[in-house]
């Protein structure tokens, strides 16, 4: 980003942070008498009042089971649920609404692809390419598949900045390569991966690609047609929506070839004890009563984000990241882990001589919420030879003053441990 003072000022003016903060009631919470500074957005984001109101309105006036009853409430609930699907379709620019599956979250989305696609099309001796940066949720399901089928996992290495080595990625391909799983944005380091290029490279060799978008969908405009990914998974609760809901996008032709993940009601057309005929997509993959309220809440959340503007959100978060990076770099004894050229608003750091858990506990005493630990990305920790990091992750409702609070908190930690 060009961070000239003028551009900086203009972009900040484009996003009225104080007005946005007023929409988030939880930001008024006090922690031990101090104002909450919530910098754990990569773990879960907060919910604005319009989304809370939407959930309440649904429960008060619209709730019934969907795709079943002929009565008024069931029709209303079904209509709102399917409307939420179309909102998510527009949010990621999918071709059709039936390409948008409701899941319980990113983890379930990836597991659905493993069971529905992997178990059907990946066999003995086949290879799956993953990257060092992956979250455990995009490693473990593939390990389970590899163990079951006798398939092999190949891993794309990273450099000291936390960027994927794309030459090495390209060298991993051979005639046995059957699948690629890659995260769009690293939860541990913030690296934005060149997924569009990686997808094109894989497609030229006939290999489908799943993108874990859990950390990208909340922070950058996502266009699944432009990326041309085969699958794109993300979570509602990182996107100002409720927990227990997420999205798996899949190309219609691919979803149709896949086997169902879970069996039950709503995913069938007819059932006899001799033969069951599966429903069409997306319903084939949505067995049982889904989290209807959460899906509708997620629809309201993407309405909210779209009204603010994903471009503006991304620009403000980059301003926050650049400012935080500059400020933290100015504190002697603090090392930033993850210095990729292209990053989203995640700042992982290590304070010399202080364990991250002590950092987290002390910052909490100042009301500052960050994440400490391995971030469910132990291979990344091993690569950087640290047991854990401290991670501040920003959202569009964070302010520059909160970055200042973080930096003051870091200095306080150093003072305690001096």
């Amino acid at each position: 980003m060009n961070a000239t003072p003028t551009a900086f000022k203009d972009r900040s003016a484009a996003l009225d942070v104080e007005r946005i903060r007023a929409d988030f009631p939880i930001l008024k919470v006090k922690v031990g008498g101090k104002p909450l500074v919530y910098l754990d957005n990569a773990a879960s984001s907060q919910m604005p009042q319009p989304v809370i109101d939407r959930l309440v309105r649904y429960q008060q006036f619209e709730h019934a089971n969907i795709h079943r009853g002929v009565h008024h409430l069931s029709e209303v609930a079904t209509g709102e649920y399917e409307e939420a699907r179309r909102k998510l379709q527009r949010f990621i620019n999918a071709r059709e609404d039936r390409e948008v599956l409701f899941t319980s979250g990113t983890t379930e989305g990836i597991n659905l692809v493993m069971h529905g696609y992997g178990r059907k099309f990946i066999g003995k001796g086949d290879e799956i390419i993953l990257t060092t940066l992956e979250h455990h949720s995009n490693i473990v399901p593939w390990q389970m598949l590899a163990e079951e089928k006798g398939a092999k996992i190949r891993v794309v290495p990273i450099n000291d900045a936390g960027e994927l080595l794309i030459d090495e990625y390209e060298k991993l391909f051979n005639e046995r390569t059957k699948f690629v799983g890659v995260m769009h944005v690293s939860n541990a380091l913030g690296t934005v991966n060149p997924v569009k290029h990686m997808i094109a490279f894989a497609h030229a060799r006939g290999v489908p690609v799943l993108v874990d978008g859990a950390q990208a969908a909340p922070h950058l405009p996502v266009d699944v047609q432009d990326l041309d990914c085969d699958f794109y998974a993300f979570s509602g609760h990182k996107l100002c929506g409720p927990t227990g809901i997420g999205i798996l996008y899949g190309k219609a032709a691919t979803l149709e070839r896949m086997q169902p993940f879970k069996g039950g009601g709503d995913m069938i057309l007819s059932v006899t004890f001799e033969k069951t005929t599966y429903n069409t997509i997306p319903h084939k993959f949505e067995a049982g009563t889904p989290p209807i309220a959460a899906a509708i809440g997620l629809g309201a959340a993407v309405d909210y984000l779209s009204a603010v503007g994903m471009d503006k959100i991304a620009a403000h978060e980059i301003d926050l990241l650049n400012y935080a990076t500059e400020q933290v770099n100015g504190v002697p004894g603090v090392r930033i882990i993850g210095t990729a050229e292209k990053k989203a608003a995640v700042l992982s750091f290590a304070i010399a001589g202080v364990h991250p858990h002590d950092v987290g506990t002390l910052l909490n005493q100042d009301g500052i919420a960050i994440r400490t630990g391995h971030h469910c990305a132990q291979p990344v920790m091993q690569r950087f030879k640290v047991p854990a990091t401290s991670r501040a992750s920003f959202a569009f409702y964070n302010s520059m003053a909160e970055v200042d609070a973080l930096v003051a908190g870091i200095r306080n930690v150093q003072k305690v441990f001096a």
Partner: protein
Amino acid sequence: MADPKALYQEVILDHNRKPRNFGVLEGATHKAEGHNPLCGDHLTLTLKLDGEKVDAIAFTGESCAICKASASMMTAAVKGKARGEAETLIREFRDMATGTLDFATRPHHLGRLTVFAGVRDLPTRVKCAILPWHTLHAALNSVTSTSTEAEDDPMHAPIGDA
């Protein structure tokens, strides 16, 4: 620190900076490794028992300040004590850290170890303080390796970090 309830009191910081009995004993009779896979805390404990008495004890490892200070103060507390007394301290420390021992009104032998009482208000940090004691229990019972996440572990209290 201004807040008297704050965990990072000077005595803890001092033991973190200058851990007592830090190292590995030559000719140890008992040894155990303790590991908390959730945060990466790792320590090795070596002991020399003379009959039922803890003659010498030392620890090494990589951990947060709470764990390191707890290990340091533990070694100082159990050195010269009988095995039974050490086991009593292990139990009392664990009960204090998990909040089941009201150490202000009930009799105990913890002495200055009560500086760790504050962890009971920080559920995610309880294991940091307990790990050395847990490892001591394993060493005294000739278990060579222990983890805060072992399923049959009586001190196991799952706290999410994954």
